[in-house]
């Protein structure tokens, strides 16, 4: 679910240390989770579909068929109908999906890496470094997430890059806080002390022993956040901060459809359903990965 609660991801990942036998059980647990498997399959299909967009669509996303404007769903030649300019909805959804997925995934990955680095440093070095990093993050936490993303993107020139930057910036603190808490849990453990006694430098210990243990909660968290970020990103596109016409992503398509809501509701409904489906799939997938990593939730 799209809460920003981090504790469960950490718990799940604490359990994620063990033999290949344990890994086998985790895979098996994941494979038994019907929701997660369906979601993973669905997401793979969506990715494949947007990659193959030119082949699947048959027409370009901006090709306007003036004779077939406002065509409803199921029209011959336009399976999902057309919009007010006679552009094929299926083609626009497939090409738009490229941008929407990119905006959901790329900032989450970048913010995950930066946040992981900051959290590691804060949690491992403590003291002044920790203070400075955490106080800076507090400032970002003082803004509602969507507001800060809108303010940053709204001050810059609209575009995909702007959206990616804005979402990355607002996400970093969430990852950093998670990574810091996880690091704090790892550092007092005996194997870290052993590494220190064996003469490992601070950098070696941090990269070779702490990092791998902090990595998995961050991955779990990132998966759940991707669903939310598809929604947030489409919100930014909806108010015109992302791709510019005639290019569209799902958020911008909802905004275009809004103008003809009475006459052709499918222009609004379809891209929204696409956002909902993908965000739902990411949420299920995140839950599935978390449960698979956490032995306490193994059932049946």
């Amino acid at each position, binding site marked *: 679910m799209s809460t920003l609660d981090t504790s469960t991801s950490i718990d799940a990942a604490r359990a994620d240390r063990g033999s290949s036998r344990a890994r086998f059980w985790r895979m098996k647990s994941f494979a038994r989770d019907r929701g997660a498997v369906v979601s993973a399959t669905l997401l793979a299909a969506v990715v494949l579909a947007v990659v193959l967009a030119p082949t699947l669509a048959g027409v370009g996303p901006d090709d306007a068929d003036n004779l077939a404007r406002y065509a409803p769903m199921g029209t011959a030649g336009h399976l999902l109908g057309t919009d007010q300019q006679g552009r094929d909805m299926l083609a626009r959804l497939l090409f738009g999906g490229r941008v929407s997925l990119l905006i959901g995934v790329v900032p989450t990955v970048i913010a995950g890496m930066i946040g992981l680095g900051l959290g590691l440093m804060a949690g491992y070095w403590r003291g002044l470094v920790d203070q400075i990093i955490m106080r800076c993050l507090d400032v970002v936490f003082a803004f509602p997430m969507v507001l800060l993303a809108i303010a940053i993107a709204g001050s810059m020139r609209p575009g995909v890059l702007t959206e990616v930057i804005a979402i990355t910036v607002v996400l970093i603190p969430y990852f950093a806080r998670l990574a810091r808490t996880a690091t704090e849990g790892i550092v007092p453990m005996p194997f870290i002390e052993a590494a220190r006694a064996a003469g490992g430098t601070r950098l070696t210990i941090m990269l070779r022993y702490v990092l791998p243990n902090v990595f998995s909660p961050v991955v779990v968290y990132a998966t759940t956040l991707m669903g939310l970020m598809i*929604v947030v990103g489409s919100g930014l596109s909806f108010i015109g901060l992302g791709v510019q016409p005639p290019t569209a992503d799902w958020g911008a398509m909802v905004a275009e459809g809004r103008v003809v809501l009475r006459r052709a509701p499918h222009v609004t409904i379809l891209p929204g359903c696409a956002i909902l489906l993908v965000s739902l799939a990411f*949420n299920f997938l995140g839950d599935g990965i978390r449960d698979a990593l956490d032995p306490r939730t193994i059932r049946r």
Partner: protein
Amino acid sequence: MGAFLARRLAGVIPVIFGVSIVIFMLIQLAPGDAATVLLGPQASEAAKIELRHTLGLDQPLVSQYVVWLARTLSGNFGTSIATQLPVATLVVPRFLNTLILTFGSLVLAVAIGYAIGLFAGLRSHSLFDRLSMSLALLAGSAPPFWLGLILVLLFAIQLRWLPVSGMQDMAGNGGWLDVLHHLVLPSVTTALGPAAIMARIVRSSVIEALGRSHVRVARAKGLSRATLIRRHVILNALPPIVTITGLQLGYLLGGALLTEVVFAWPGLGALLYDSITARDLPVIQATTLLIALAFVLANIAVDLINAALDPRLREA
């Protein structure tokens, strides 16, 4: 309690200071020269030079910030580029409208989320539980602005029960009832996502409380189910719920901004949208600052409620 409040307020001062720096830096993000950004593309060269001098844009960044902060603290947010009006006169009435929408949505989200979560938790694994939790999952994953449009399609266009947009009827002055009538769709739109998350958390909180040993003892000594739930389950499930409601505030405020755009609700979100379209940076800054301040204060209020409910928190 007083000492707790004082500590909490003292801790917030550096945060607000940081917030002001972030908002000041927004203008540095804007493409092009700040004077052109502030005065708009039509401004004359002389006016730009004058503005650069009055704002101290020829000064180093730090002194620019000090000047800006002093100006902002005295309530002077500058002049709107689009309307040439003082920003404060634009922002303040809008702020009230956003508060109405946010408060309405919060009340709805809490009412829906708690009611559904409580019933689902008390009858876990029943049909109601499974159905409502599936719906909650859907509502929590849907983009709120799109949900708003779907509600408009259903209730305003198809059924004609509710107005499509705005805050009041253009024709007459319907008073409070009219505003409430206009408030229904925007507040439901904003509330659904947070309500869905609250319902899930309340449900698990209630299930956990039901399993605690003191509840079993109370049941064993023959307390009626109603009293048991009222006195032991709800009260014990409450503190995490208040915290979660607090956490949802940010989501709610962010959602309200987009809802205002969908429903042309004349609040800060709609103003922010207009000023982004018009590249009206002083208004963007003032709006962002106001919402962030309101958010910080709301979070303090949540902490106070929590501390009042759970004395242990006052020590921390």
